[in-house]
């Protein structure tokens, strides 16, 4: 897809700056906040840092774990869990689908890059 070609990558930090099973927040030039997570098996994921239920930019401060094997982060505000791969909320009320934006994250030469289009 052409979208991929237009993707720009921003280096944000060293991989060691993201401890296993935790997250950090990065501020992009346009003011977007991306939460970058690293799971126990050293995979990296990027989600919008904004918790959709409270509006607070805090998802990076949630606890990282799994729900039935799916890697998730639990919002520190009201504890809803979000799928790290898809951004989908697993605990939304009344069958509504709630999603947060996902961002591609890659590690090259020990440096974490976030992609944005």
């Amino acid at each position: 897809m052409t979208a991929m070609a237009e993707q720009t990558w921003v280096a944000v930090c060293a991989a060691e700056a993201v401890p296993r099973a935790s997250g950090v927040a990065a501020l992009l030039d346009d003011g977007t906040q991306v939460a970058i997570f690293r799971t126990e098996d050293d995979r990296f994921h990027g989600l919008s840092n904004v918790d959709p239920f409270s509006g607070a930019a805090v998802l990076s401060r949630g606890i990282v774990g799994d729900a039935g094997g799916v890697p998730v982060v639990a919002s520190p505000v009201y504890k809803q869990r979000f799928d790290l791969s898809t951004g989908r909320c697993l605990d939304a009320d009344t069958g509504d689908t709630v999603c947060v934006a996902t961002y591609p994250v890659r590690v090259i030469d020990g440096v974490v890059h976030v992609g944005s289009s």
Partner: protein
Amino acid sequence: MNRTLVVVGHGMVAHRLVEAVRSDDVDGTWRIVVLGEESRPAYDRVALTSYVDDWDAERLALPGCTYSGDEHVELRLGDPVVSVDRAAKRVTTASGFTQDYDALVLATGSRPFVPPVPGRDLPGCFVYRTITDLDDIRAAVERATDGRGRAAAAVVGGGLLGLEAAKALRDMGLSPHVVELAPRLMPLQVDEGGGSLLRSLITELDVTVHTGTSTDAVEADRGRLVAKLGNGTELDVDLLVFSAGVRPRDDLARDCGLDVGERGGVLVDATCRTSDPDVFAIGECAALEGRVYGLVAPGYSMAEVAAATLLGTPASFPGADTSTKLKLMGVDVASFGDAHATTDGALEVAFNDAVRGTYQKLVVSDDATTLLGGVLVGDASEYNLLRSLVGNPLPAEPAALLAPAGAGDSAVGVDALPAEAQICSCNAVTKGAIVHAVTDQGCDSVGAIKACTRAGTSCGSCVPMLGKLLDACGVEQSRALCEHFAQSRAELFEIVRATRITTFSELIARHGTGAGCAICKPAVASILATLGNGHVLGGEQVTLQDTNDRFLANLQRNGTYSVVPRVPGGEITPDKLIVIGQVAKDFGLYTKITGGQRIDLFGATVDQLPLIWRRLVDAGFESGHAYGKALRTVKSCVGTTWCRYGQQDSVGLAVELELRYRGLRSPHKLKSAVSGCARECAEARSKDFGIIATEQGWNLYVGGNGGAIPRHADLLVSDVDTETLIRIIDRFLMFYVRTADRLQRTAPWVEELDGGLDHLRAVIVDDSLGICAELEEAMAEHVANYRDEWRGVLEDPEKLARFTSFVNAPGTPDPTISFRTEREQPVPVLLGVPEVVSR
């Protein structure tokens, strides 16, 4: 089409009616106007006596009693209805306000019955029915006490209400007399044998009982009262409380020509309709098919029936369970079914155990096959089981149904109950319905049964039976912490303690599955911290912590944090107050005094937290653990140092306790308080452990709670010296930390302990398990190893580096955070909640 329902009176039953109509009237066809006489909205009159504990009327308020936010309900208080014009369908209040109705519900309740004794209107004579009555009694006690010793009081009436009034006076520190016309106490509920045991138990509690005698006259005598009894006794008292039963308030009905019962009460049929089809009567003012009920449960049934009828659903009164169980001054008294053996040919089987102080009587049918009723005094532990058996075939010999002394559970378990036996009498749920919920609807926990059937959701006394029914159905109640650990928190605690595992990864690899979650990670972090594994942000532990513990501050709604420095015992120097004020000013923080006698500073970003704490630590402050499941504060009153009434140095003890237990990680937060005398200004009985000074030393209360489910702490030991007190608190806290569930406060923990408070006392006072030395040692270790967590962060560059909003822009604060000014202080500008969903 909107019709108007006018409700006269706002007591417990009226409130239940309004709730029932509002919850089922989905289209809002009724507009409801409630006209109440008392100036307070509906409160829990059944618990009136407990008002003496803290004089906090708010605590008695019934949930939702003001209907705020419900535009269909209008509540007008402090203005009683004085007349009803049935032809015009209009009521008029004392202030002249008029209100038209389409339907009228009378819920005017009862008035206290005052026997026609000469002098009954003298100052110093009271009745016992409302919060205001109790306030008046309290004022009289204080006037009488002022300047000279203890006040003296007598209660006329030795029934349920009379003994409640006597208990209230006892709780105010008096030693009241109780005068009862009948030959025994509680003549309606208990028989002669039960009454005589009750008398001896009550007498032991410093209440003087006069039975079989009338009160003939009350006379004023030099500012006091003399009560002259029929047997010649004269009682010199400061106040006299008439609490000799109630009479239905049916005046409004009489005045407007409605039929009334032979012995009073507004006559209604089984649908709660009066002789006028547009007028209903419910609760204690109603004579349902001629009978007046003075209990709240039948009143609630009437409220439900009237509500259903108003909404066009056929309903009729299901009959009343007049069983009663109460604890009067620590004495269990219960009666159920045909307690007085009035059924033809009924047989009585009584067990009178003077040594144990119990009296138990069962009433059975003439062929001894069916349980009809019973009386229990001194030990009512079998009440739920027995009450649910009434009307059913006896599953065993009558004697086997009553637990012999010391034998624990009775010989008959829940499996012996027939399906139609009512387990939850508050919500009329049968054993059959509960078993159906378990076997066919997949309920696998007490919580699930509650949600599905409503059993156990009102008074809660049947909750232990729900657990036993689950066992009986072969359902293993899951105690798993979460999907990653099959063990309970207490089991994990023992595993970590025994194996000396020091990391979450090792624990989950050896004893769990998966990667963990927001439930098990903080729980394990807490266990590791209790057992002393270094700084809570050290190594892998940082990734286990909930955001509050990770940033050692309290997350607020806009993503900022609040900071609470420790102020032990609430005692603080002017210099330290100035430092807090200056820090707040310099960092633009909102300040608020907390309920725990500390100061909370709001609005700090993660980048600011170390800068703020550098200043605070330099000034001698340390972490207050407001963010942790840990000891919060030990509140205190000023005690002997300043107070004219103080009996011990409450501030000194509070400071000592707070410094001793600071930093102790526990299953949930821990709160404490120390009061310097029985006036209890520090509100110690609402705390996990509360201490109240006595003349001789200290009383220790445990398991109290404020919050959503308030509970007064129970007295564990009395009149102990400071050293003993601290030793017992050490044991209490460590035993709790080891055995409680995740996020279980001490109040539910104490309640759910097998054997309850007595078991707790056996373990930590009498050392029945032989673990006290170990518990004390664990606490000594905690005290010796305590380090201030914030100092630990400031001294470690690696930990400090984590306090940044952005990994790629350290020092840049979160741009979404902004403040506006309200009442001269910064408050958050509310964040837009983008695409979602109402919460």
